[in-house]
């Protein structure tokens, strides 16, 4: 579980996050949604330790990040898996080497043991037979799956995903969404997904945090999103005709 309390963060005197508090529970897919500039990425990077908030606390299963020593912070980072928007696979490494990278860096496991684990997670993300290929030789969807495999290879407690569906066709996007949800439930991971994709919201939104102008404007589940009267979230989610009709249909039963 990750708990954030009153997080504030500014850049160049401009306050981006204005006191956001939330609890992201384990085994659930937690989504952060909001318009561009609402502070989603800053919040995610604060959770990852890339940005340091000026105010507030972030605690990982009770461990307050800002109170930890450098070694303890590094320890937490080894418990984190991250799926970047552009996959961020290492160009010079093969798929197999990319996935095994965290294990080679942080464990003393033998090559055979690492390879066995790599084979297992690649099979888990339905990617068999691509071990020797370079990232440039596989499709965007496959790259995302390799990135997911790399993120879960060392059994992380926390999984962060930044725009996991960007640049993917609808079918592949659903595959990736389902994979994230399955892995979250299977390994009881605390998953936080930063997304713009309303399909993802409807598919995997166990818990949704809606940010507007650096503030928490709404919080709930994908079911509650249909019933809410909160103007900010209604305006954001139902900005397209398709979703307006989906909502109307849902409300009519």
């Amino acid at each position: 579980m990750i708990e954030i309390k009153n997080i504030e963060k500014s850049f160049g005197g401009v306050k981006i996050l204005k006191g956001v508090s939330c609890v992201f529970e384990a085994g659930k897919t937690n989504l952060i949604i909001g318009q561009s500039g609402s502070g989603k990425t800053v919040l995610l990077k604060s959770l990852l330790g890339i940005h340091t908030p000026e105010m507030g606390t972030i605690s990982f299963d009770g461990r307050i990040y800002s109170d930890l020593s450098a070694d303890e912070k590094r320890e937490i980072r080894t418990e984190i898996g991250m799926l970047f928007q552009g996959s961020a696979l290492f160009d010079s490494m093969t798929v197999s080497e990319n996935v095994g990278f965290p294990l080679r860096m942080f464990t003393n496991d033998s090559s055979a043991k690492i390879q066995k684990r790599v084979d297992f997670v690649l099979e888990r993300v339905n990617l068999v037979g691509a071990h020797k290929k370079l990232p440039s030789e596989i499709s965007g969807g496959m790259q995302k799956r390799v990135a997911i495999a790399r993120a879960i290879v060392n059994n992380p407690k926390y999984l962060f995903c930044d725009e996991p569906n960007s640049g993917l066709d609808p079918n592949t996007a659903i595959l990736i969404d389902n994979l994230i949800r399955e892995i979250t439930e299977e390994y009881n991971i605390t998953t936080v997904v930063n997304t713009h994709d309303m399909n993802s919201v409807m598919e995997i939104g166990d818990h949704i945090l809606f940010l507007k102008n650096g503030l928490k404007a709404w919080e709930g589940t994908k079911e509650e999103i249909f019933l809410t009267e909160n103007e900010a979230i209604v305006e954001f989610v139902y900005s397209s005709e398709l979703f307006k009709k989906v909502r109307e249909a849902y409300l009519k039963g």
Partner: protein
Amino acid sequence: MKGLIYKEVDDLIIDSLGIVAFISFFVGGVVSMQTALNLTNSFIPKYLIGYATRQSVILEFAPTFMSIIMAGKMGSFITSSIGSMRVTEQIDALEVMGVNSLNYLVFPKIIALLLYPFLVGIGMFLGITGGYIATVYGGFGNSIDFIDGLQRDFIPFHVVYAFTKTFIFGMLLATIPSFHGFYMKGGALEVGKASTVSFVWTSVTIILLNYIITQLLLTK
């Protein structure tokens, strides 16, 4: 880390052997030809061709001008490869995993460039060889005069001076381009700009340090 160092040695040193050999050989040949063509006075001894080639190649061409060429070749490679990693969030990925990205990316390059004097040594040898072949087979002088010139008034400290500055230039070649790649911001266009800026700054620093080192080590 050992694997990373081997890879950097391969990318930076071994892959530069061809261009270093090619440029050194032909520039050495041209230096000796130019010297020979300017020796119009018959009172000036022919051994001066070998002497001038040796001094030019060992003191300046191999250590300094080869380093400027390498600022273009190795420097651009280092800046663009690290810069591309920055743009595509690969450096963020390393940081999130808890890897010290600066150490992971830059340290192997610094270690690999400890072998840079080896590359310059080859440049010196091939430069002088090119000078010898151009002189003897181009009909500008004979082998005995050229070798006499190579050996005449040889000051071993000049080699120490040349390799001292080569070592320093090697460290500049590893660090300045790495800095420009690691701290760049923006997209693909900025990677190209960072490579250019890194080449300019590496070259300027090499030229300035060359002046200072020469002042410190060779003047009385």
